[in-house]
């Protein structure tokens, strides 16, 4: 357990995202504010088109919001659509991503897919290899380390993707329907893994899911509808 569980992993205040303009304007996210503490696992539910992915990519510094502010740790990182930091550097150092699809690099082996994330963050390749191997073992795919992604099952690929997301010990982990491609057992395993990482490493975790069976792993659950966010009791 970490010392200060109430320190913020992320704080979003009044963030909105408007796609397009005029007739085609879509208000995908409206005045959303929330915080996620370090070590906290937060679930995000909501119907399709509610703006969940929009929220996730905004705070993941992939898709800037139209307005509002985002703080990660102590840093103000986004002020409206303006980046206050080098977002790419920030992403590699502080944020881990898992998506519905594993999105592994097809010409790299399982091990190399994790290793590259570490090397991008300037970890020496020998150390990167060791750490990548540990992560694969931790996720139960150590024996498939030399396989290319196409030789792995969907679940195995997803676990390699999770290993990649955890590689640089991010302070924020963002997962967009990470278990959609997994069976319920593996899905559950991944959710519990997030919980474990949050509690052991003190990372803040936000998981978008449609799977109501894993709600019990979340410390809190938000629900989104038509671009607005509310706390689910």
């Amino acid at each position, binding site marked *: 357990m970490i010392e200060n569980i109430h320190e913020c992993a992320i704080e979003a205040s009044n963030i909105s995202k408007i796609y397009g303009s005029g007739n085609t304007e879509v208000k995908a996210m409206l005045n959303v504010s929330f915080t996620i503490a370090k070590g906290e696992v937060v679930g995000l539910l909501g119907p399709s088109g509610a703006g969940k992915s929009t929220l996730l990519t905004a705070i993941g510094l992939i898709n800037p919001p139209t307005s509002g502010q985002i703080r990660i740790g102590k840093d103000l990182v986004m002020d409206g659509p303006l980046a206050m930091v080098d977002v790419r550097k920030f992403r590699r150092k502080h944020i881990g991503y898992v998506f519905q699809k594993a999105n592994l690099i097809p010409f790299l082996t399982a091990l*190399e897919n994790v290793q590259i994330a570490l090397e991008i963050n300037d970890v020496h390749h020998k150390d990167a290899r060791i750490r990548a191997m540990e992560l694969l073992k931790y996720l139960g795919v150590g024996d498939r380390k030399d396989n290319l992604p196409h030789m792995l099952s969907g679940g195995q690929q997803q676990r390699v993707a999770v290993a990649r997301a955890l590689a640089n010990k991010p302070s924020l982990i963002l997962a967009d329907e990470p278990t959609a491609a997994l069976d319920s057992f593996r899905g559950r395993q991944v959710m519990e893994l997030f919980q474990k990482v949050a509690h052991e490493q003190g990372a803040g975790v936000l998981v978008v899911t449609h799977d109501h069976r894993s709600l019990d792993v979340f410390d809190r659950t938000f629900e989104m509808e038509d671009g607005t966010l509310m706390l689910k009791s």
Partner: protein
Amino acid sequence: MNLAIRDIRHSLPRFLLTAIGIGMLLMIVMGMSGIYRGLIEDALLLVDKIGADLWIVQHNTRGPFAEISRIPLKTEDRLCAVPGVKSARAFVSHTIQRERNGKPLRIVVQGLSWPEDKGEWIPITNGRCLSAGHFEMIADQSLGFNLGDQLPLGKNIYTIVGLTRGMVGQGGDGLAFFSLRDAIAIQFDTSGEAIRLERDARRSRAIQQDIGNTQPELLNRAASQNIPALAGPMVSAVIIRTEQGADIDKVAETISGWKDVSVHTADNQKSLLLKGSVDKARRQIGLFRALLVIISAIIMSLILYTLTLDKIHDIAMLKLIGARNSLILGLILQQAIILGGLGYILAFYLGKWIFPLFPRRVIVTGNDLVWLAVIVLAISVLSSLLGIWKAMSVQPNEVL
């Protein structure tokens, strides 16, 4: 971790096939510059090998290569008397086309002023130089003769006593060296019937003229062999070597005072050749070569662009997890350079194998190889720009 090599390994057959394609393209670029170089070399070969200091040709002509030149053989003796001249030799050169085994045989006939010049200066690879004033010849290998072969030309049969390699005229046809008298005989080979007809024609011309009637003896003479012999043999040019330490310009100046001949230095002769007869062919090939370089660059751009497009999702993912632009730039540039390098090496070995089969010389010099390497490198870098631009403009959220 080197992404470029891992990606190549992952799609090796496709990459190799692409490299072979580029290799063949580069081989053609290499071949074009080889043909260009060969053309120039062939054109200058004779002037270079003969090593004359001055060329004396018919007045106001730029012969004997760029245009026809005829001067009397006697000029040789006059030139020997000029101070500073070490030797003067007649030069006879003309191309003949005969048939041999059903195929056209083109020979550039060269006359050597026997006995002063037996062809010692000719780089003979097999056999010897001329040892008799008649009926011997030295031939280039490209003509397809063997030592001892006999070749009937005109009324005589010539025996091949020596062979050379790579001695060709500006048209790429092999050279054959004869004694001067033989060379002239081959050129002015007229049949008995033609001579008889000419004598009759001469006689009838004389009858129709006053002089023929007032001097009847002339009519008898017209039909004899003596009259044609009155005109001394003509040669294409006379080449001069100057004495050691003699001032070539001074010698040239003396001779250029003569009203019946013109003088060209060896360098002058070379530039006449390059600016004259071979110039258009040279420019044609030069332009073609430039076009090929541009086409190769375009094709390589497209290939590298598609290679990048295939990976665009992975590149977006790399950006998403925070990869620096340098990593992505390196991936594309390294692949471009590996592709170009592999193509270059393939081009080199393919060329080594194929170029000797060409009918004319393809000369790839070390200098040209270095230049081509620089060009390939430049093409590789330039042609990856399109792919790099695409990779740089992809947004990480395109992964989703």
